[in-house]
């Protein structure tokens, strides 16, 4: 009997104690972040996760002066585990929130281990609009943002559950989202191994607030989902950029890249520029995303990848909105996935 695994311990291993960080608002407008977080906690508890209570988390965040809720660094993650017993942190970023018809919501959520260095165990995003699946006689239309928010969060939590069960499927890429221009150095092609990769904030030249941080999350997700990459947690990168006082004027310079390579023990650094990140304003129009990427390789200290991508949600759509992508989140995600796959292959 003693050799049999304890069911309670197994359950704990499957559903570790989670610290759910306050939601990071990247939407650029006021949004009901507390409601999003509460819904998220309810869904997690329904799935059997234990969630760290608010008071303990608040006390910890105050004591450690945690201000960046969009990521976690190694020291904070380790302290979180030691002081609260939390095994992982759930970090949520709200990218888009629109209450006017059609309601819109876009979110990115990731599970990061409470260890030093913190490791990304799961990451997914969702972008939805109330009119994206009207169905027969418009029965599929969603008019209230609350209902859309619940649907989006349920989608994310289902993805987390699948990931915990080892059943998460990675969707394929579509040709229309491939970069329009791309350069890939032979240096990269010669090596086939797992790369540690740092994704730096993109230089934001668009009118959308926080677009530089939003696009980073898309790349973190798409690269992390490929077996060839271990992405460094953005919270760790953020802390290093502050520590080295890196000011990226028009992109990263080679001395800054060298410092990041050595300190984070990374093989690759991905950065870029975001030129447009637009969601459709009303029921008409189409989201539009335009960005370019550059990637440095530690071995050669040279640019080994460069690409330029731009797409509309209506690209390749000819009849009855078949294949239309309704949010910039979804467009950017598919574009980033194409870039990530082209880097590998």
């Amino acid at each position, binding site marked *: 009997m003693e050799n049999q695994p304890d069911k309670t311990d197994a359950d704990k291993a499957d559903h570790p104690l989670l610290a759910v960080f306050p939601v990071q608002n990247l939407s650029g407008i006021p949004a009901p972040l507390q409601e999003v977080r509460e819904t998220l906690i309810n869904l997690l508890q329904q799935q059997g996760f234990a969630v760290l209570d608010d008071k303990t988390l608040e006390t910890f965040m105050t004591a450690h002066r945690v201000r960046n809720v969009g990521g976690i660094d190694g020291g904070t993650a380790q302290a979180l585990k030691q002081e609260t017993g939390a095994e992982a942190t759930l970090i949520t970023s709200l990218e888009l929130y629109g209450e006017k018809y059609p309601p819109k919501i876009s979110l990115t959520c990731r599970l990061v281990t409470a260890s030093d260095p913190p490791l990304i165990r799961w990451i997914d995003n969702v972008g939805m609009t109330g009119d994206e699946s009207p169905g027969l006689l418009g029965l599929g239309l969603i008019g209230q943002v609350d209902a859309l928010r619940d649907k989006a969060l349920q989608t994310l939590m289902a993805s987390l559950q699948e990931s915990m069960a080892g059943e998460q499927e990675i969707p394929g890429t579509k040709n229309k989202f491939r970069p*329009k*221009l*791309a*350069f890939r150095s032979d240096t990269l092609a010669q090596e086939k191994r797992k790369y540690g990769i740092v994704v730096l904030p993109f230089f934001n*030249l668009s009118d959308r607030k926080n677009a530089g941080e939003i696009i980073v999350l898309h790349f973190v997700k798409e690269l992390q989902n490929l077996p060839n990459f271990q992405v460094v947690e953005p919270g760790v990168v953020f802390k290093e950029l502050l520590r080295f006082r890196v000011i*990226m*004027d*028009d*992109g*990263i*310079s*080679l*001395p*800054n890249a060298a410092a990041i390579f050595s300190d984070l023990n990374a093989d690759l650094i991905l*950065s870029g*520029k975001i*030129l447009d990140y637009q969601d459709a304003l009303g029921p008409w129009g189409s989201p539009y995303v*335009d960005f*370019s990427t*550059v990637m*440095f390789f530690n071995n050669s200290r*040279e*640019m080994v990848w*460069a*690409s*330029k991508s*731009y797409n509309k949600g209506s690209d390749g759509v000819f009849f009855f909105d078949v294949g239309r992508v309704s949010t910039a989140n979804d467009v950017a995600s598919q574009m980033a996935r194409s870039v990530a796959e082209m880097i590998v292959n």
Partner: protein
Amino acid sequence: MWLKKIILSVILALLTACAASPLSTYHDTEMDFGSIQTVAVLPFANLTGHTRVEERVRDVFMNMLLATASLYVIPPGEVARGISRVQLVDSAAPSAEEVQKLGVALSADAVISGVVREYGEVRSGTAASNVISIGLQLMEVQTGRVIWSGSTTKGGINMQDRLLGGGGQPMNDITEEAVLDLIHQLFNS
């Protein structure tokens, strides 16, 4: 006889119209372009009424130049550091001394500067279309002199736009077309 003259004049006029303007490109015939391996692309000047178009055009140009795999293009962040180090006043029109200093700071063989003259929509009556006009210069680092210069204009209102409307090609497409034309001019020199 007079009919013959008219026909000949028309043919001559048509042939002249088809020919590429020899005045849009300059290349130094004594320069060995094969010796240029690494180039720094400086931020372009913007003479249009639109903001940040010089960044967009430079971005496309750098990517397309890299994609040729003929030259290594120094990353934009490194170029910005070089500009700051040599205290370049006007990156769109550097002097020969500044080009030499910048080349040493960035370990570049040549420096490219440019100007975006037109970018965006043009209208003529009820017809509208997109247009782009770019001019570039390639300067050798050892002497700081201009060894290649090219310019191009793409898009604009054509007969189809006047008759059928439609607004012309998307801006990204004509930007790529214009940059490709400049790259052809550069490599064909």
